[in-house]
């Protein structure tokens, strides 16, 4: 068999296999996805009553206002387009190492900010997930402790009772999947949507 023939055979094999593995296969998966899991397969977008798409259930977004629960610091994207991270077209972690001065400085300013915003919270009680950047920069969740740390602030900003806010938070806690896998988490966007529905606050 000459080399030329072998190259030709390899090319035909590549194209044939591409047709099956990169054509038929993903199309079949797409068909199943669109038939059985349409909403999820298309990104799990959340529509408000007025039709506005306010985000995706699985994609975190930046929150800075006192009346909303805040998610984790995010290293996805950068200023000016995404000053607070959460650029969902540029997912990324901070990739800062454990002995990098920038890591220590960033951590300190995150902790200071959290303590300043949440006066009920004392040094030594700051939940670590609330002051560290996630791997994707799009983490939609925080730990129940990180949500609890913000309850007083949110209640005050919305003139709601602490118990009311606490109830909303507790309703949003998702335990470990099947009781075994992963950690307990709270979806920040869904929680904030609950708040807006329960106790609308006039936009500033």
């Amino acid at each position, binding site marked *: 068999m000459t080399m030329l023939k072998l190259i030709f055979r390899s090319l035909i094999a590549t194209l*044939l296999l591409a047709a099956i*593995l990169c054509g038929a296969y993903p199309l079949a998966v797409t068909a199943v996805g669109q038939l059985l899991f349409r909403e999820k397969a298309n990104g799990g977008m959340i529509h408000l009553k007025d039709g506005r798409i306010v985000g995706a259930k699985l994609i975190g977004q930046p929150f800075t206002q006192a009346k909303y629960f805040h998610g984790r610091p995010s290293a996805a994207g950068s200023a000016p387009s995404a000053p607070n991270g959460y650029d969902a077209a540029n997912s990324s*972690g901070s*990739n800062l190492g454990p002995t*990098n001065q920038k890591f220590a400085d960033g951590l300190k300013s995150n902790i200071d900010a959290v303590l300043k915003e949440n006066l009920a919270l004392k040094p030594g009680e700051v939940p670590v997930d609330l002051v560290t950047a996630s791997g994707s920069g799009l983490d939609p969740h925080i730990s129940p402790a990180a949500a609890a740390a913000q309850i007083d602030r949110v209640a005050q900003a919305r003139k709601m009772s602490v118990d009311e806010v606490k109830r909303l938070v507790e309703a949003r806690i998702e335990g470990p999947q099947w009781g075994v896998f992963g950690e307990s*988490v709270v979806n920040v966007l869904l929680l904030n949507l609950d708040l807006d529905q329960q106790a609308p606050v006039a936009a500033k």
Partner: protein
Amino acid sequence: MSVRDTLQLVLFLVILAVSAAPLGIYMDHVFDGSKTFLSPLFGPLERLIYRLIGVDPGEDQPWSKYAIHLLVFSAVSLAFTYAVLRLQQVLPLNPAGQGPVVPHLAFNTAMSFTTNTNWQSYGGESTMSYLSQMVALALHNFLSAAVGIAVAVALIRSLARKEAKGIGNFWADMVRCNLYVLLPLCFIYAVFLLSQGVIQNYLPYQDVLTLEGAKQTIALGPVASQVAIKMLGTNGGGFFNANAAHPYENPTALSNFVQMLSIFLIPSALVYLLGRKVKNLKHGWAVWVAMALVFLVGVMICTHSEYQGNPIYTKLGCSTAANMEGKEARFGIFGSTLFATVTTDASCGAVNSMHDSFTPLGGLVPLVNIMLSEVIFGGVGSGLYGMVMFIILTVFIAGLMVGRTPEYLGKKIEGREVKYTMLAMVVMALSILGFTAWGSLDSAGLAALGNPTGHGFSEILYAYTSATGNNGSAFAGLSTNTPFWNLTLAFAMFFGRFFMMIPMLAVAGSMGKKRVHPGGEGTFPVDGPLFVGLLIGVILLVGALTFFPALSLGPIAEHFDMLRGQFYK
């Protein structure tokens, strides 16, 4: 480790052990060419492919022919991927309007996916069109996995054969693996992923107005079909930049658990297949146990280090020092450390947390896993033939100790096999350490660093280790999308893939030719605790002797810096 962590770990190992036999037996039938329950579905397609490419699947190829066909096929499919990447701007399915991939990046990426590495110098959602993802990249997720499995199967076959001329047929092994093993498993797996929330669409990126009124653009795409083969084929190339940390690639703790399992699924079944083919199931399980033990040690060290975390957290006011930097809340510490260990024991390289931000010893575990040649279950195919390499060395050393001709499965191990084995090992070490030295001295290398001093050195060491080991995970603070990095990494990937694969095919050829002698009293048994212990010892010793000096400059020194609160600008 909490009780729940332990429960997950036990569950993980039990499912892995239970799945090994059925999948191993099924693969035995597939690669024998005998009928399986999928033959009515894929048989006609398989025969059509053979006819169109002019292959007689029954032709028994000698190892050299098998190797040449493998190399040419890899080269041609590499060129195909390069062409698609360069032309993506004029090809369809590009709703985000991505431009052409620049030449050095396209070369690096084509080499990366052809060698089953999936090192990514780019961010998927900001560089690749949907067509490039599906055709240029996912194609190699299938092909490189199938090629790796084919080599392992050819090696197993040769160990089981007596006085044989050939080692099998490359085209038949490769096509059968794709059609009967990878494709059906991926389809079922992709449907599971869809149920968990992994996306699958061809929509343009979605603009949304967030609750606070900011604009957010959400990248979309056909993700589920690609994630399935990315994990199952131990490829690891993420659809998105954040890989398996991205909520659209890995949305739930359950999808996380299944993704970790799917990395080890085929490698574990191949070990069973080895035992079955050579009619010594005990040997297969002995190898499996050796792998599981080293795996467990890695998980323990990594998990402990990340829970212990960094003293800076509590010093500045956090309630614990557990290191959540670069980790997702839904996975927590253990869901991240288990993933990091699994993905580097195998040659997968998908990441669900950023290894660059691990504590020094937590990050040492993935690094060392790759340095041990990824034989702890390992990559699909490459893990098994890498392990056979260490078994040959173990048997050889045992033979030297007792002063008898070493034998493996009744076949004499001679100078030829040991030379091929050592060639592969020396090339690995040379590529990792040589390139690391170069990258640490060259200003073009140092320009990429994302972290200072010792940690920066770890980034370089990790990059060339990952490339040579065909892993693809990274200390991702390193910005490698430059000509220097893209080219040196591409060559490291090439050396790591083919200077291990081809020598092992040569070993297959020479082992297949040998006569089988019935084992005597002096034969070193390959199925007991003594063998398991010696095998682990050899793996660790080779790794430690080669890499300890480099490790002590990087993560080990940094560990002490971290403990005494030393930070660097």
